[in-house]
Protein backbone atom coordinates (compact mmCIF):
# COMPACT_ATOMS: atom_id res chain seq x y z
CA UNK A 1 0.00 0.00 0.00
CA UNK A 2 1.53 3.27 -1.10
CA UNK A 3 1.00 6.36 0.98
CA UNK A 4 0.39 9.94 0.05
CA UNK A 5 3.50 12.11 0.12
CA UNK A 6 3.72 15.52 1.84
CA UNK A 7 2.91 17.45 -1.36
CA UNK A 8 -0.21 15.33 -1.85
CA UNK A 9 -1.31 16.00 1.72
CA UNK A 10 -0.78 19.76 1.39
CA UNK A 11 -2.79 19.72 -1.84
CA UNK A 12 -5.49 17.71 -0.11
CA UNK A 13 -5.64 20.14 2.84
CA UNK A 14 -6.07 23.06 0.46
CA UNK A 15 -8.92 21.30 -1.35
CA UNK A 16 -10.64 20.55 1.97
CA UNK A 17 -10.19 24.19 3.02
CA UNK A 18 -11.62 25.33 -0.33
CA UNK A 19 -14.66 23.06 0.03
CA UNK A 20 -15.43 24.02 3.63
CA UNK A 21 -14.52 27.73 3.70
CA UNK A 22 -17.79 29.11 2.25
CA UNK A 23 -19.90 26.95 4.58
CA UNK A 24 -17.75 27.74 7.60
CA UNK A 25 -17.88 31.51 7.08
CA UNK A 26 -21.67 31.42 6.71
CA UNK A 27 -22.03 29.58 10.01
CA UNK A 28 -19.60 31.91 11.80
CA UNK A 29 -21.10 35.16 10.54
CA UNK A 30 -24.57 33.96 11.59
CA UNK A 31 -23.50 34.40 15.22
CA UNK A 32 -22.28 37.98 14.85
CA UNK A 33 -23.65 40.57 17.28
CA UNK A 34 -22.98 43.38 14.75
CA UNK A 35 -25.35 44.95 12.25
CA UNK A 36 -23.11 44.19 9.28
CA UNK A 37 -21.79 41.00 7.77
CA UNK A 38 -18.72 40.46 9.90
CA UNK A 39 -16.99 37.70 11.79
CA UNK A 40 -18.05 37.63 15.46
CA UNK A 41 -14.93 39.07 17.06
CA UNK A 42 -16.71 40.53 20.12
CA UNK A 43 -18.63 37.55 21.45
CA UNK A 44 -21.44 35.48 19.97
CA UNK A 45 -25.05 36.44 19.62
CA UNK A 46 -28.23 34.71 18.54
CA UNK A 47 -29.97 37.96 17.58
CA UNK A 48 -29.95 37.18 13.85
CA UNK A 49 -31.48 33.76 14.38
CA UNK A 50 -34.17 35.49 16.40
CA UNK A 51 -34.63 37.95 13.55
CA UNK A 52 -35.20 35.05 11.14
CA UNK A 53 -37.91 33.53 13.31
CA UNK A 54 -39.59 36.95 13.61
CA UNK A 55 -39.48 37.51 9.86
CA UNK A 56 -42.89 36.29 8.60
CA UNK A 57 -41.70 35.83 4.99
CA UNK A 58 -38.83 33.54 5.93
CA UNK A 59 -41.00 31.54 8.34
CA UNK A 60 -43.72 31.09 5.74
CA UNK A 61 -41.19 30.08 3.07
CA UNK A 62 -39.61 27.60 5.45
CA UNK A 63 -42.97 25.86 5.98
CA UNK A 64 -43.69 25.98 2.25
CA UNK A 65 -40.36 24.30 1.53
CA UNK A 66 -40.81 21.73 4.27
CA UNK A 67 -44.29 20.68 3.11
CA UNK A 68 -43.22 20.74 -0.50
CA UNK A 69 -40.20 18.50 0.19
CA UNK A 70 -42.18 16.09 2.41
CA UNK A 71 -45.01 15.74 -0.11
CA UNK A 72 -42.91 15.52 -3.24
CA UNK A 73 -40.40 13.04 -1.76
CA UNK A 74 -43.20 10.80 -0.48
CA UNK A 75 -45.24 10.91 -3.69
CA UNK A 76 -42.10 10.38 -5.78
CA UNK A 77 -41.41 7.17 -3.83
CA UNK A 78 -45.03 6.04 -4.24
CA UNK A 79 -44.81 6.54 -8.01
CA UNK A 80 -41.27 5.24 -8.40
CA UNK A 81 -41.61 1.88 -6.61
CA UNK A 82 -44.06 0.32 -9.10
CA UNK A 83 -42.35 1.99 -12.06
CA UNK A 84 -38.92 0.74 -10.98
CA UNK A 85 -40.35 -2.79 -10.52
CA UNK A 86 -41.84 -2.67 -14.00
CA UNK A 87 -38.60 -1.48 -15.58
CA UNK A 88 -36.31 -3.93 -13.84
CA UNK A 89 -38.45 -7.06 -13.94
CA UNK A 90 -40.21 -7.06 -17.29
CA UNK A 91 -39.16 -6.89 -20.90
CA UNK A 92 -41.78 -4.86 -22.72
CA UNK A 93 -42.17 -2.48 -25.60
CA UNK A 94 -41.33 1.07 -24.58
CA UNK A 95 -39.27 -0.03 -21.57
CA UNK A 96 -36.16 1.79 -22.80
CA UNK A 97 -38.22 4.89 -23.56
CA UNK A 98 -39.83 4.91 -20.11
CA UNK A 99 -36.47 4.42 -18.42
CA UNK A 100 -35.02 7.36 -20.36
CA UNK A 101 -38.12 9.46 -19.64
CA UNK A 102 -37.93 8.82 -15.88
CA UNK A 103 -34.25 9.77 -15.78
CA UNK A 104 -34.55 12.71 -18.21
CA UNK A 105 -34.90 15.45 -15.55
CA UNK A 106 -31.26 14.74 -14.67
CA UNK A 107 -30.03 15.95 -18.06
CA UNK A 108 -32.54 18.71 -18.78
CA UNK A 109 -31.34 21.95 -17.16
CA UNK A 110 -33.69 22.99 -14.34
CA UNK A 111 -33.86 26.40 -15.93
CA UNK A 112 -35.42 24.87 -19.05
CA UNK A 113 -37.83 22.82 -16.93
CA UNK A 114 -38.76 26.00 -15.06
CA UNK A 115 -39.68 28.02 -18.15
CA UNK A 116 -41.42 25.01 -19.70
CA UNK A 117 -43.60 24.44 -16.63
CA UNK A 118 -44.31 28.16 -16.36
CA UNK A 119 -45.69 28.02 -19.91
CA UNK A 120 -47.84 24.96 -19.15
CA UNK A 121 -49.12 26.39 -15.88
CA UNK A 122 -49.98 29.70 -17.56
CA UNK A 123 -51.97 27.87 -20.26
CA UNK A 124 -53.96 25.71 -17.84
CA UNK A 125 -54.39 28.60 -15.39
CA UNK A 126 -52.40 26.96 -12.62
CA UNK A 127 -49.80 29.67 -12.07
CA UNK A 128 -48.85 29.88 -8.42
CA UNK A 129 -50.77 26.78 -7.36
CA UNK A 130 -49.12 24.74 -4.62
CA UNK A 131 -50.43 21.44 -5.98
CA UNK A 132 -48.80 21.97 -9.36
CA UNK A 133 -45.59 23.05 -7.63
CA UNK A 134 -45.61 19.72 -5.78
CA UNK A 135 -46.18 17.89 -9.07
CA UNK A 136 -43.24 19.73 -10.65
CA UNK A 137 -41.01 18.80 -7.71
CA UNK A 138 -42.10 15.15 -7.89
CA UNK A 139 -40.87 15.11 -11.47
CA UNK A 140 -37.42 16.48 -10.65
CA UNK A 141 -36.79 14.28 -7.60
CA UNK A 142 -38.16 11.00 -9.03
CA UNK A 143 -34.94 10.22 -11.00
CA UNK A 144 -32.91 10.13 -7.78
CA UNK A 145 -35.39 7.69 -6.22
CA UNK A 146 -35.50 5.60 -9.41
CA UNK A 147 -31.74 5.18 -9.53
CA UNK A 148 -31.53 3.86 -5.98
CA UNK A 149 -34.60 1.65 -6.42
CA UNK A 150 -33.37 0.14 -9.66
CA UNK A 151 -30.04 -0.65 -7.96
CA UNK A 152 -31.87 -2.16 -4.97
CA UNK A 153 -34.24 -4.27 -7.07
CA UNK A 154 -31.58 -5.58 -9.45
CA UNK A 155 -29.34 -6.43 -6.53
CA UNK A 156 -31.64 -8.79 -4.69
CA UNK A 157 -32.09 -12.50 -4.72
CA UNK A 158 -35.46 -13.39 -6.24
CA UNK A 159 -35.41 -16.95 -4.93
CA UNK A 160 -36.69 -15.58 -1.62
CA UNK A 161 -39.81 -14.36 -3.39
CA UNK A 162 -40.14 -17.68 -5.21
CA UNK A 163 -39.98 -19.43 -1.84
CA UNK A 164 -42.75 -17.23 -0.47
CA UNK A 165 -44.95 -17.94 -3.51
CA UNK A 166 -44.33 -21.67 -3.26
CA UNK A 167 -45.41 -21.56 0.37
CA UNK A 168 -48.71 -20.13 -0.83
CA UNK A 169 -48.29 -16.42 -0.16
CA UNK A 170 -50.39 -14.09 -2.27
CA UNK A 171 -48.82 -11.44 -4.48
CA UNK A 172 -49.78 -8.68 -2.09
CA UNK A 173 -48.30 -10.56 0.85
CA UNK A 174 -45.07 -11.25 -1.02
CA UNK A 175 -44.74 -7.59 -1.89
CA UNK A 176 -45.50 -6.41 1.64
CA UNK A 177 -43.58 -9.05 3.56
CA UNK A 178 -40.68 -9.89 1.23
CA UNK A 179 -40.06 -7.43 -1.61
CA UNK A 180 -40.64 -4.18 0.25
CA UNK A 181 -38.48 -5.03 3.30
CA UNK A 182 -35.67 -6.08 0.99
CA UNK A 183 -35.67 -2.86 -1.02
CA UNK A 184 -36.33 -0.72 2.07
CA UNK A 185 -32.82 0.79 2.27
CA UNK A 186 -33.25 1.92 -1.35
CA UNK A 187 -36.69 3.36 -0.55
CA UNK A 188 -35.58 5.32 2.53
CA UNK A 189 -32.31 6.43 0.92
CA UNK A 190 -34.25 7.54 -2.15
CA UNK A 191 -36.79 9.39 -0.01
CA UNK A 192 -34.08 11.30 1.85
CA UNK A 193 -32.13 12.28 -1.26
CA UNK A 194 -35.43 13.35 -2.87
CA UNK A 195 -36.28 15.40 0.21
CA UNK A 196 -32.91 17.18 0.18
CA UNK A 197 -33.10 17.89 -3.55
CA UNK A 198 -36.62 19.27 -3.33
CA UNK A 199 -35.84 21.35 -0.24
CA UNK A 200 -32.80 22.92 -1.99
CA UNK A 201 -34.25 23.40 -5.46
CA UNK A 202 -34.00 26.98 -6.71
CA UNK A 203 -33.69 27.29 -10.46
CA UNK A 204 -36.95 25.66 -11.49
CA UNK A 205 -38.96 26.89 -8.50
CA UNK A 206 -38.08 30.54 -9.08
CA UNK A 207 -40.19 30.46 -12.26
CA UNK A 208 -43.23 28.69 -10.88
CA UNK A 209 -43.73 30.01 -7.35
CA UNK A 210 -46.10 32.83 -6.49
CA UNK A 211 -45.81 35.19 -3.50
CA UNK A 212 -47.79 32.76 -1.34
CA UNK A 213 -45.89 29.61 -2.39
CA UNK A 214 -42.34 31.01 -2.41
CA UNK A 215 -39.90 28.37 -1.18
CA UNK A 216 -36.98 29.07 1.13
CA UNK A 217 -34.21 28.98 -1.54
CA UNK A 218 -36.25 31.30 -3.79
CA UNK A 219 -36.90 33.66 -0.86
CA UNK A 220 -33.18 33.67 -0.04
CA UNK A 221 -32.24 34.33 -3.65
CA UNK A 222 -34.64 37.28 -3.84
CA UNK A 223 -33.46 38.59 -0.48
CA UNK A 224 -29.77 38.28 -1.40
CA UNK A 225 -30.18 40.19 -4.66
CA UNK A 226 -31.76 43.13 -2.82
CA UNK A 227 -30.16 43.52 0.58
CA UNK A 228 -27.55 41.64 2.46
CA UNK A 229 -27.44 41.56 6.24
CA UNK A 230 -26.49 38.88 8.78
CA UNK A 231 -30.05 37.51 8.72
CA UNK A 232 -29.16 35.89 5.41
CA UNK A 233 -26.21 34.22 7.15
CA UNK A 234 -28.49 32.97 9.93
CA UNK A 235 -30.94 31.42 7.44
CA UNK A 236 -27.98 29.85 5.62
CA UNK A 237 -26.61 28.43 8.87
CA UNK A 238 -30.03 26.89 9.63
CA UNK A 239 -30.05 25.28 6.18
CA UNK A 240 -26.50 23.96 6.65
CA UNK A 241 -27.67 22.48 9.97
CA UNK A 242 -30.76 20.82 8.46
CA UNK A 243 -28.68 19.46 5.58
CA UNK A 244 -26.08 18.11 7.99
CA UNK A 245 -28.78 16.22 9.92
CA UNK A 246 -30.21 14.83 6.68
CA UNK A 247 -26.73 13.83 5.49
CA UNK A 248 -25.99 11.99 8.73
CA UNK A 249 -29.35 10.19 8.53
CA UNK A 250 -28.66 9.31 4.93
CA UNK A 251 -25.22 8.00 5.85
CA UNK A 252 -26.81 5.85 8.56
CA UNK A 253 -29.61 4.30 6.52
CA UNK A 254 -27.93 3.94 3.16
CA UNK A 255 -24.30 5.07 3.19
CA UNK A 256 -23.56 8.47 1.72
CA UNK A 257 -20.76 7.24 -0.49
CA UNK A 258 -23.09 4.62 -1.95
CA UNK A 259 -25.72 7.25 -2.74
CA UNK A 260 -23.39 9.84 -4.17
CA UNK A 261 -20.87 7.64 -5.87
CA UNK A 262 -23.39 5.01 -6.91
CA UNK A 263 -22.67 1.49 -7.96
CA UNK A 264 -23.77 1.47 -11.54
Amino acid at each position, binding site marked *: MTRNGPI*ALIFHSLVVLFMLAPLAI*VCLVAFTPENTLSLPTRGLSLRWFEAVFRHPDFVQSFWNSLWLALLSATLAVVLAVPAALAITRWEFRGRGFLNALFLSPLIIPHLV*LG*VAMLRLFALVGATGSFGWLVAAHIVIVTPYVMRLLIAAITGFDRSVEQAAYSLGASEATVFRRVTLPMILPGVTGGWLIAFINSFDELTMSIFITSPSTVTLPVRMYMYATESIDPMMAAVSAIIVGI*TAVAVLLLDRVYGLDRILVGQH
Partner: protein
Amino acid sequence: MSAAPARLPTPLILSAPAALLFGALILTPLVLTALLSFNEFEHATGRTHGFTVAHYASVLSDSYYLEIFLRTFRVAALATAICVVIGVPEAYILSRMRNPWRSVFLLVVLAPLLVSVVVRAFGWSMLLGPEGPVNAALMALGFGRMRLLYSEGTVIVALVHVMLPFMVIPVWTSLQKLDPAVEQAALSFGASRATAIVRVVAPQILPGILSGSLIVFGLSASAFAIPGLLGGRRLKMVATIVYDQYLSDLNWPMGAAVAVLLLAANLIVMLTYHRVVEGHYRRRLG
Protein backbone atom coordinates in the same frame (compact mmCIF):
# COMPACT_ATOMS: atom_id res chain seq x y z
CA MET B 1 -46.97 -28.56 -6.77
CA SER B 2 -45.37 -25.18 -6.40
CA ALA B 3 -47.43 -22.44 -7.94
CA ALA B 4 -45.64 -20.48 -10.62
CA PRO B 5 -45.23 -16.87 -9.51
CA ALA B 6 -48.37 -15.13 -10.66
CA ARG B 7 -47.71 -12.24 -13.03
CA LEU B 8 -49.18 -8.83 -12.44
CA PRO B 9 -51.40 -7.90 -15.37
CA THR B 10 -48.82 -5.80 -17.08
CA PRO B 11 -45.75 -3.69 -16.30
CA LEU B 12 -47.45 -0.85 -18.11
CA ILE B 13 -50.05 -0.59 -15.34
CA LEU B 14 -47.27 -0.33 -12.78
CA SER B 15 -45.46 2.41 -14.61
CA ALA B 16 -48.58 4.22 -15.87
CA PRO B 17 -48.96 6.75 -13.01
CA ALA B 18 -45.35 7.90 -13.25
CA ALA B 19 -45.46 7.84 -17.05
CA LEU B 20 -48.60 10.01 -17.13
CA LEU B 21 -47.07 12.53 -14.75
CA PHE B 22 -43.85 12.70 -16.76
CA GLY B 23 -45.78 13.00 -20.01
CA ALA B 24 -47.83 15.86 -18.60
CA LEU B 25 -45.00 17.71 -16.88
CA ILE B 26 -41.92 16.99 -19.01
CA LEU B 27 -42.93 16.24 -22.57
CA THR B 28 -45.94 18.57 -22.87
CA PRO B 29 -44.27 21.69 -21.43
CA LEU B 30 -41.14 21.14 -23.52
CA VAL B 31 -43.19 20.87 -26.71
CA LEU B 32 -45.21 23.94 -25.71
CA THR B 33 -42.02 25.89 -25.06
CA ALA B 34 -40.50 24.85 -28.38
CA LEU B 35 -43.70 26.06 -30.11
CA LEU B 36 -43.69 29.28 -28.08
CA SER B 37 -40.19 30.09 -29.28
CA PHE B 38 -41.58 30.40 -32.83
CA ASN B 39 -44.36 32.80 -31.82
CA GLU B 40 -44.25 36.50 -32.63
CA PHE B 41 -44.18 38.85 -29.68
CA GLU B 42 -45.91 42.23 -29.53
CA HIS B 43 -43.99 44.52 -27.21
CA ALA B 44 -46.93 46.87 -26.80
CA THR B 45 -49.52 44.32 -25.71
CA GLY B 46 -47.39 41.35 -24.71
CA ARG B 47 -49.49 39.07 -26.90
CA THR B 48 -47.89 36.10 -28.64
CA HIS B 49 -49.16 34.65 -31.90
CA GLY B 50 -48.22 33.60 -35.43
CA PHE B 51 -45.01 31.99 -36.62
CA THR B 52 -41.55 33.49 -36.90
CA VAL B 53 -37.93 32.45 -36.63
CA ALA B 54 -36.98 36.02 -35.72
CA HIS B 55 -36.03 35.12 -32.13
CA TYR B 56 -33.56 32.49 -33.23
CA ALA B 57 -32.24 34.82 -35.93
CA SER B 58 -31.64 37.61 -33.44
CA VAL B 59 -30.08 35.31 -30.83
CA LEU B 60 -27.70 33.93 -33.43
CA SER B 61 -26.80 37.26 -35.03
CA ASP B 62 -27.13 39.91 -32.30
CA SER B 63 -23.71 40.65 -30.82
CA TYR B 64 -25.29 41.13 -27.36
CA TYR B 65 -26.53 37.53 -27.29
CA LEU B 66 -23.41 36.17 -28.98
CA GLU B 67 -21.30 37.77 -26.29
CA ILE B 68 -23.42 36.15 -23.58
CA PHE B 69 -23.21 32.73 -25.25
CA LEU B 70 -19.44 33.11 -25.67
CA ARG B 71 -19.00 34.20 -22.06
CA THR B 72 -21.11 31.27 -20.84
CA PHE B 73 -19.06 28.89 -22.94
CA ARG B 74 -15.76 30.39 -21.74
CA VAL B 75 -16.76 30.38 -18.07
CA ALA B 76 -18.05 26.80 -18.27
CA ALA B 77 -14.92 25.62 -20.10
CA LEU B 78 -12.58 27.26 -17.58
CA ALA B 79 -14.57 25.90 -14.62
CA THR B 80 -14.37 22.43 -16.20
CA ALA B 81 -10.61 22.69 -16.76
CA ILE B 82 -10.01 23.79 -13.17
CA CYS B 83 -12.25 20.97 -11.91
CA VAL B 84 -10.07 18.48 -13.82
CA VAL B 85 -6.86 19.99 -12.43
CA ILE B 86 -8.14 19.92 -8.84
CA GLY B 87 -10.62 17.05 -8.86
CA VAL B 88 -8.55 14.33 -10.52
CA PRO B 89 -5.53 14.54 -8.18
CA GLU B 90 -7.87 14.90 -5.20
CA ALA B 91 -9.78 11.74 -6.15
CA TYR B 92 -6.45 9.92 -6.55
CA ILE B 93 -5.22 11.13 -3.16
CA LEU B 94 -8.53 10.12 -1.53
CA SER B 95 -8.33 6.66 -3.07
CA ARG B 96 -4.89 6.14 -1.51
CA MET B 97 -6.01 7.08 1.98
CA ARG B 98 -6.82 4.53 4.63
CA ASN B 99 -10.07 4.30 6.49
CA PRO B 100 -11.44 6.08 8.48
CA TRP B 101 -9.78 9.11 6.88
CA ARG B 102 -10.84 8.03 3.44
CA SER B 103 -14.56 7.93 4.33
CA VAL B 104 -14.34 11.12 6.38
CA PHE B 105 -12.69 13.15 3.63
CA LEU B 106 -14.85 11.67 0.90
CA LEU B 107 -17.80 12.95 2.94
CA VAL B 108 -16.14 16.36 3.37
CA VAL B 109 -15.53 16.71 -0.36
CA LEU B 110 -18.89 15.36 -1.54
CA ALA B 111 -21.36 16.55 1.13
CA PRO B 112 -21.34 20.25 0.12
CA LEU B 113 -23.16 18.98 -2.97
CA LEU B 114 -26.24 18.63 -0.79
CA VAL B 115 -26.15 22.16 0.65
CA SER B 116 -28.32 24.65 -1.22
CA VAL B 117 -26.43 26.45 -3.96
CA VAL B 118 -27.79 29.79 -2.69
CA VAL B 119 -26.01 29.21 0.63
CA ARG B 120 -22.75 28.39 -1.11
CA ALA B 121 -22.98 31.43 -3.41
CA PHE B 122 -23.66 33.58 -0.37
CA GLY B 123 -20.64 32.06 1.39
CA TRP B 124 -18.41 32.99 -1.54
CA SER B 125 -19.79 36.53 -1.66
CA MET B 126 -18.73 36.93 1.97
CA LEU B 127 -15.33 35.29 1.49
CA LEU B 128 -14.52 37.49 -1.49
CA GLY B 129 -16.34 40.64 -0.38
CA PRO B 130 -14.51 43.92 0.30
CA GLU B 131 -14.43 43.18 4.07
CA GLY B 132 -13.96 39.42 3.65
CA PRO B 133 -11.03 37.28 4.79
CA VAL B 134 -9.56 36.96 1.29
CA ASN B 135 -9.27 40.72 0.97
CA ALA B 136 -7.91 40.93 4.51
CA ALA B 137 -5.22 38.42 3.56
CA LEU B 138 -4.41 40.34 0.37
CA MET B 139 -4.08 43.57 2.39
CA ALA B 140 -1.85 41.85 4.93
CA LEU B 141 0.37 40.66 2.09
CA GLY B 142 0.57 44.22 0.78
CA PHE B 143 -1.52 43.84 -2.37
CA GLY B 144 -4.16 46.31 -1.26
CA ARG B 145 -7.90 45.85 -1.41
CA MET B 146 -9.16 44.27 -4.62
CA ARG B 147 -12.58 44.28 -6.15
CA LEU B 148 -13.21 40.55 -6.44
CA LEU B 149 -16.99 40.34 -6.54
CA TYR B 150 -19.04 40.63 -9.73
CA SER B 151 -16.22 39.38 -11.94
CA GLU B 152 -15.89 36.37 -14.19
CA GLY B 153 -13.16 35.07 -11.88
CA THR B 154 -15.50 34.96 -8.89
CA VAL B 155 -18.21 33.20 -10.89
CA ILE B 156 -15.64 30.60 -12.00
CA VAL B 157 -14.30 30.03 -8.47
CA ALA B 158 -17.81 29.51 -7.09
CA LEU B 159 -18.74 27.24 -10.01
CA VAL B 160 -15.65 25.12 -9.34
CA HIS B 161 -16.75 24.81 -5.71
CA VAL B 162 -20.24 23.68 -6.74
CA MET B 163 -19.07 21.33 -9.52
CA LEU B 164 -15.99 19.71 -7.95
CA PRO B 165 -17.97 16.79 -6.45
CA PHE B 166 -19.32 15.98 -9.93
CA MET B 167 -15.72 15.56 -11.10
CA VAL B 168 -14.49 13.65 -8.04
CA ILE B 169 -17.36 11.13 -8.16
CA PRO B 170 -16.76 9.58 -11.63
CA VAL B 171 -12.96 9.68 -11.24
CA TRP B 172 -13.26 8.03 -7.83
CA THR B 173 -15.54 5.36 -9.33
CA SER B 174 -13.04 4.53 -12.07
CA LEU B 175 -10.19 4.49 -9.53
CA GLN B 176 -12.13 1.93 -7.49
CA LYS B 177 -12.21 -0.41 -10.48
CA LEU B 178 -8.46 -0.10 -10.93
CA ASP B 179 -6.27 -2.95 -9.74
CA PRO B 180 -3.55 -1.43 -7.51
CA ALA B 181 -1.30 -4.38 -8.37
CA VAL B 182 -0.87 -3.02 -11.90
CA GLU B 183 0.55 0.25 -10.58
CA GLN B 184 2.77 -1.75 -8.20
CA ALA B 185 3.99 -3.85 -11.11
CA ALA B 186 4.98 -0.72 -13.05
CA LEU B 187 6.88 0.56 -10.02
CA SER B 188 8.65 -2.73 -9.41
CA PHE B 189 9.75 -2.82 -13.04
CA GLY B 190 11.59 0.41 -12.35
CA ALA B 191 9.08 3.00 -13.59
CA SER B 192 9.18 6.29 -11.71
CA ARG B 193 6.14 7.44 -9.69
CA ALA B 194 5.33 9.96 -12.43
CA THR B 195 5.65 7.42 -15.25
CA ALA B 196 3.44 4.98 -13.39
CA ILE B 197 0.75 7.62 -12.98
CA VAL B 198 0.94 8.92 -16.56
CA ARG B 199 1.30 5.58 -18.36
CA VAL B 200 -0.67 3.23 -16.11
CA VAL B 201 -3.20 5.08 -13.95
CA ALA B 202 -4.20 7.96 -16.23
CA PRO B 203 -5.30 5.91 -19.26
CA GLN B 204 -7.54 3.77 -17.07
CA ILE B 205 -9.33 6.67 -15.39
CA LEU B 206 -9.69 8.65 -18.62
CA PRO B 207 -13.37 7.69 -19.12
CA GLY B 208 -14.08 8.91 -15.58
CA ILE B 209 -12.36 12.24 -16.26
CA LEU B 210 -14.22 12.58 -19.54
CA SER B 211 -17.61 11.84 -18.07
CA GLY B 212 -16.94 14.21 -15.16
CA SER B 213 -15.90 16.96 -17.56
CA LEU B 214 -19.06 16.69 -19.62
CA ILE B 215 -21.31 16.73 -16.56
CA VAL B 216 -19.45 19.72 -15.11
CA PHE B 217 -19.53 21.56 -18.42
CA GLY B 218 -23.25 20.93 -18.95
CA LEU B 219 -24.19 22.01 -15.43
CA SER B 220 -21.90 25.07 -15.49
CA ALA B 221 -23.25 26.26 -18.82
CA SER B 222 -26.81 26.20 -17.47
CA ALA B 223 -25.98 27.39 -13.93
CA PHE B 224 -28.31 30.09 -12.69
CA ALA B 225 -27.78 30.92 -9.01
CA ILE B 226 -24.02 31.44 -9.16
CA PRO B 227 -23.95 33.98 -12.02
CA GLY B 228 -27.19 35.47 -10.71
CA LEU B 229 -25.79 36.18 -7.25
CA LEU B 230 -22.07 36.63 -7.95
CA GLY B 231 -22.09 38.05 -11.48
CA GLY B 232 -24.09 41.13 -10.59
CA ARG B 233 -26.19 43.03 -13.09
CA ARG B 234 -23.53 43.42 -15.73
CA LEU B 235 -22.13 39.92 -16.00
CA LYS B 236 -24.97 38.09 -17.73
CA MET B 237 -24.89 34.41 -18.64
CA VAL B 238 -27.36 32.32 -20.63
CA ALA B 239 -29.40 31.26 -17.61
CA THR B 240 -29.69 34.76 -16.16
CA ILE B 241 -30.68 36.19 -19.55
CA VAL B 242 -33.52 33.64 -19.84
CA TYR B 243 -34.67 34.70 -16.37
CA ASP B 244 -34.61 38.37 -17.40
CA GLN B 245 -36.54 37.70 -20.60
CA TYR B 246 -39.23 35.78 -18.73
CA LEU B 247 -39.63 37.75 -15.53
CA SER B 248 -38.44 41.30 -16.34
CA ASP B 249 -38.95 41.91 -20.07
CA LEU B 250 -41.86 39.44 -20.18
CA ASN B 251 -40.73 38.51 -23.70
CA TRP B 252 -41.50 34.82 -23.30
CA PRO B 253 -40.94 33.76 -26.94
CA MET B 254 -37.43 35.23 -26.86
CA GLY B 255 -36.67 33.57 -23.53
CA ALA B 256 -38.07 30.31 -24.90
CA ALA B 257 -35.76 30.50 -27.93
CA VAL B 258 -32.70 30.93 -25.69
CA ALA B 259 -33.90 28.10 -23.44
CA VAL B 260 -34.41 25.79 -26.43
CA LEU B 261 -30.88 26.55 -27.67
CA LEU B 262 -29.51 25.87 -24.18
CA LEU B 263 -31.38 22.55 -23.99
CA ALA B 264 -30.17 21.55 -27.46
CA ALA B 265 -26.55 22.35 -26.55
CA ASN B 266 -26.90 20.41 -23.31
CA LEU B 267 -28.41 17.36 -24.99
CA ILE B 268 -25.63 17.34 -27.59
CA VAL B 269 -23.03 17.38 -24.81
CA MET B 270 -24.76 14.61 -22.85
CA LEU B 271 -25.36 12.36 -25.87
CA THR B 272 -21.73 12.81 -26.95
CA TYR B 273 -20.79 11.70 -23.47
CA HIS B 274 -22.85 8.54 -23.80
CA ARG B 275 -21.32 7.79 -27.19
CA VAL B 276 -17.76 8.37 -26.00
CA VAL B 277 -18.06 6.44 -22.75
CA GLU B 278 -19.93 3.50 -24.29
CA GLY B 279 -17.53 3.43 -27.24
CA HIS B 280 -14.64 3.31 -24.83
CA TYR B 281 -16.08 0.35 -22.92
CA ARG B 282 -16.91 -1.46 -26.14
CA ARG B 283 -13.31 -1.09 -27.33
CA ARG B 284 -12.04 -2.36 -24.01
CA LEU B 285 -14.31 -5.38 -24.12
CA GLY B 286 -13.83 -6.14 -27.82
